[in-house]
């Protein structure tokens, strides 16, 4: 059968429509529940409650710090995984991706056993006067642990898919490897960096299990918005719903903003020579 792509729209079989629509209902209905059940008259007074603004401030501080830390160590790691061959690379890649599938609470326990007072690195940290559990730094570390794979995965894929001739040209023109990385490689993978960064940030913002397990729960110190939601739900469900709405709005706003500016170019292949 010969058809021109424009003339005939492909018929989507019901076999695909029904489960796809089911998936959509599964995702959208709970969000609708949140919006429908929200005590709208109380939204403003609840959101301006000092306890909530404190958690919001802490959440923003921690999630952006986690994003910064992820960029600092995740981009070089992505480059290493994409460009350098070394023994055991498959294992390293698996380890990097593990936090994606690990239950966050398990991540929190693992962090405790590594960086806690009696953890593997505990004596070392103690000697350096660094205390991570029960501190904001600990919350940032927990968020970075779960957010890092999103960034690394995205950037590694982009670097591996780059046309290396750009970098080779820059190198033959006399640029050193670091300069090539900073002025050629990074700009070429900027869309992947933004997309991975957005996902990592959103994951950090929503982090709960690893944070409460590793860093504890103290208002102003480690109680980020998801922890506040959890504890409010026990005591004051209406307030919990309002804070959940706030998280939903912040995440949605960021994703929409990024989609417009950054995520769309992802569809075209980065770094293809004209």
């Amino acid at each position, binding site marked *: 059968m010969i058809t021109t792509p424009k003339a005939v729209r492909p018929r989507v079989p019901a076999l695909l429509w029904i489960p796809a629509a089911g998936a959509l209902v599964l995702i959208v209905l709970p969000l609708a529940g949140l919006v429908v059940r929200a005590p709208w008259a109380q939204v403003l007074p609840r959101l301006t409650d000092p306890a909530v603004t404190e958690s919001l401030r802490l959440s923003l501080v921690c999630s952006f710090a986690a994003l910064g830390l992820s960029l600092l160590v995740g981009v070089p790691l992505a480059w290493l995984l994409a460009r350098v061959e070394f023994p055991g690379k498959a294992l390293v890649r698996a380890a990097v991706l593990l936090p994606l599938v690990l239950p966050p609470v398990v991540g929190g326990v693992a962090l405790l056993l590594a960086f806690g007072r009696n953890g593997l690195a505990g004596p070392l940290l103690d000697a350096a006067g660094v205390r991570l559990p029960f501190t904001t730094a600990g919350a940032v570390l927990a968020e970075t642990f779960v957010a890092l794979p999103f960034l690394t995965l995205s950037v590694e894929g982009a670097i591996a898919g780059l046309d290396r001739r750009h970098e080779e040209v820059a190198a033959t023109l006399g640029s050193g490897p670091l300069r090539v990385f900073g002025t050629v490689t990074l700009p070429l993978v900027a869309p992947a960096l933004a997309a991975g960064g957005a996902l990592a940030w959103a994951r950090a913002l929503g982090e709960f299990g690893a944070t409460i397990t590793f860093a504890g729960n103290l208002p102003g110190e480690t109680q980020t918005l998801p922890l506040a939601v959890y504890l409010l739900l*026990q005591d004051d469900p209406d307030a919990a719903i309002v804070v959940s709405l706030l998280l939903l709005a912040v995440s949605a706003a960021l994703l929409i903003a990024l989609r417009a500016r950054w995520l769309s170019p992802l569809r075209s292949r980065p770094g293809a020579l004209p």
Partner: protein
Amino acid sequence: MRGRARVAAAACAAVVALALGTGACASGSAAGGETTLTVLAAASLTETLNAAKPAYEREHPGVKPRFSFAGSQELAAQVRQGAPADVIATADERTMSGLGDDVTKPSVFATNRLRIAVAPGNPKRVRGLADLTRKDLTVVLAAPTVPAGRYARQALGRAGVNVAPRSEEKDVKSVVTRIRLGEADAGIVYGSDVAAAGKAVSGVAIPDAQNVTARYPVAVVSTTEHREHAQALVTWMSSPAFRKELTARGFGTP
């Protein structure tokens, strides 16, 4: 286009069917004449109820209690949201009375006194609540929304001490875990928690004048489909056999 509404309806039906199916499994069916009772119980009851379970099943053939342990407030929130449960036991009467008509006729079946939990052998020499203000101690408490956290603050208030905890844990068992892992030096928990932790933690007594008695009520959840079995379980929790189990594990009885 004309099929779209039908498709959407079918999708909704599929999801609802899925949800109902899961719900039915969760509430326990009477397949083969066996009844599963879902019991929501305060975290501090974990060891006692688990230990008493085989005896209960022997005495009540065909009934299998299934426990879900969490902070009392969390359990109450689950009941308020309509979780399919048959019995709820909380660590305080306030949480239970907050449930109103969602439960029927709560009765107190156990009591518990507070203790300070410290590392085994009490290496930091904690002698009482006043010591918890010491700068060299990392202290954790249960969150004020959790009964154990509220009682701890009442006791500290009676002792006239102002403690700044490093973390407000989501339930009392998490406080014990912090001590066990060595992340915290001291925490205020129930006597039963210290008993349950065995050699992993030591307990420091809190004098009666400062201490607070937690009263544990149990009630049948109003929406239960196994009212008779649920009521029998509630009654059994005041029986001499279960009281013996309670006192062996650091609880008191009313």
